[in-house]
């Protein structure tokens, strides 16, 4: 943190002269932020931790004497209970994991592609294209979901369009079939192999885990890509403008093709932005809630259920406050784990010996 204040740090100086009274003023100035963050973020998290290990049923105060401590029972119920709670949680994880696995790479690749396209200095109508790609990002997820429900309805725009090519589109938001199962069905493989129908983790069979997102979830995935690519495009444009031209010019002189220059010169320089986009994408994709609330409420056949929505539903609809809070905290841990993992995978590494040798060989060959 750059410290632009030129005076020495607090404690090592006398409170005198023109900077007197700054401690009081500092606390006073930050008091509203501290109070509000404390009251509506810090205290709530503590309360929710308590609820997640209690048997509170939503009546009265969770802090009253009648509420009992149940240890990790709520966590156990959603992860190993063997009941509906466990299967719901398993399904929500299955759905969201596919959502993350497909949306994060696709939105990153698309936004980078858009950024590279519109970043050309000689491009006419740059402003127009940027605006067009960014606009979906400023509208609310409720408005976009409504629009999506219409676009992907049975007689909607997407199916009318597919109709031009003689394809009769699915009833998107009512179709619980999983897309990989459907893909297999087109080559004549229907039904599950014996080995996969047995029990999988969290009460969901391996066949269900591996079948990919449902058609309904797929429509939501397209929506996520549509609404986030613009924001991430801006991040990439900013980074591209900071990329120095000299290296690229050197690449041209060395006879690198456009693709080689992008892959070996531009992309490594975009690494910090790539990291930001992937992290924001991961965090966002594990929090799918508003679209589900507005659109399908987890249906059809629970294939658009996500942990975030399940957490809300368990608590506010099912009055299972403990389970809802437990799901929320597990989700929190998942998000942290993925962010850490990603940070580790994309960490700055010294050039490996094998890599270094490659460069040496090239050097001598030339």
């Amino acid at each position, binding site marked *: 943190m750059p410290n632009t204040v030129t005076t020495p740090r607090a404690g090592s100086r006398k409170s005198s002269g023109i900077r007197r009274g700054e401690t009081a003023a500092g606390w006073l100035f930050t008091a509203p932020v501290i109070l509000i963050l404390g009251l509506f973020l810090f*205290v709530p998290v503590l309360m929710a931790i308590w609820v997640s290990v209690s048997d509170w049923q939503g009546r009265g105060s969770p802090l009253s004497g009648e509420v009992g401590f149940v240890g990790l029972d709520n966590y156990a119920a959603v992860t190993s209970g063997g009941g509906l709670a466990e299967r719901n949680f398993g399904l929500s994880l299955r759905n969201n994991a596919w959502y993350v696995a497909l949306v994060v790479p696709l939105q990153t690749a698309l936004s980078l592609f858009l950024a590279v396209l519109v970043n050309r200095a000689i491009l006419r109508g740059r402003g127009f*294209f940027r605006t067009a790609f960014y606009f979906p990002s400023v509208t609310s997820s409720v408005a976009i979901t409504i629009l999506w429900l219409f676009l992907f309805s049975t007689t909607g725009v997407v199916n009318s369009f597919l109709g031009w090519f003689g394809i009769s589109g699915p009833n998107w938001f009512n179709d619980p079939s999983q897309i990989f199962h459907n893909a297999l069905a087109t080559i004549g493989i229907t039904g599950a192999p014996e080995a996969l129908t047995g029990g999988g983790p969290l009460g969901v069979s391996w066949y269900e885990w591996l079948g990919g997102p449902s058609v309904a979830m797929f429509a939501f995935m397209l929506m996520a890509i549509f609404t986030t690519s613009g924001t991430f495009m801006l991040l990439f444009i900013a980074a591209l403008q900071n990329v120095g031209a000299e290296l690229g010019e050197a690449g041209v002189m060395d006879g690198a093709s456009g693709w080689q220059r992008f892959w070996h010169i531009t992309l490594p320089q975009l690494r910090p932005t790539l990291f930001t986009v992937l992290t924001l994408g991961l965090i966002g994709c594990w929090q799918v809630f508003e679209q589900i609330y507005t659109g399908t409420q987890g249906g059809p056949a629970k294939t658009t259920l996500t942990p975030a929505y399940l957490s809300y539903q368990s608590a506010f609809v099912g009055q299972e406050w403990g389970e809802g809070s437990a799901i929320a905290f597990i989700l929190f841990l998942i998000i942290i784990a993925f962010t850490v993992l990603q940070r580790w995978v994309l960490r700055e590494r010294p050039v490996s010996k094998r890599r270094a040798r490659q460069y040496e060989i090239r050097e001598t060959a030339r």
Partner: protein
Amino acid sequence: MSEVIPAQAKVRQVDPARPARRRRPWASRRAIGQPLLYAMLVSLAIVYIFPFLVQLATSVKTDAEAADSALSLVPQTFTFAAYEALFGRSDYPIWFANSAIVTVCVTLGRVFFASLAGYALARLDFRGRGVIFALVVGVMAVPAVVLLIPKFLVLNQIGMYDSYAGMILPLLVDAAGVFIMKNFFESIPVSVEEQARIDGAGTFRVFWSIVLPMARPALITIVILSFQGSWNELSHFIVSTQSPELTTLTKGVASLASGQLSQGTQYPLKLAAAAIMTIPVAVLFFIFQKRIMNNTEGAVKG
């Protein structure tokens, strides 16, 4: 190799024709032909814009036509029935008013609190500053969805559930705003304030009359972000209210979507509701377009 050599030769020929600084040959030289590039950009732009055109067109169609010819952008029977129904025979005006009230209060509050705290964190040297800064950073890391149940619990406990206070207060502070203001204040030369301090102005006076007016660009950024954020906010209102008279646009329109207030599909009605909801943020977007585009860029650079 045979492919690379002519490309190289071509660049060398082109180079003297233009000033080298104006373009980046390695980035703008086309791996694909120019017409293909534009064809790709135009078709992508159509994909991004078309849904919104469909939305507007469908909102002035009849129900039957919306279902029959979804693709057409020109309604055969032009009707404002959906808009009349929304404003004449539903709670839509109440939702709109609530959204407006909350958005204005949240935006004003955020601008004021974020600049106060940002100034203190950037400029005032006081004990505990590091701790406060760490707290703000830490809070940014907590995903909003995890806080749904917790927020309800606290609002309920302190008797703010289902009130304007409960809708507005928790949104008044956002860590990102404090960050933006802190970064901005750090970029202003210290000498500006020292002059005023020597003249005997107090801390708040210096902040209010000297520094804040200089921070207009950053303040506008926060206004845009807060407006957009609170106008589009849904999850917080789901867990902080239940009364129909406190329903905001997002919550109300979401209930329309699941068909609670309408019979049948009624796509024109729903799309009109969504379209009106988009207008304020769209207007804001087009007024401050340049700034909005640069915000994101600045956020990354900083």
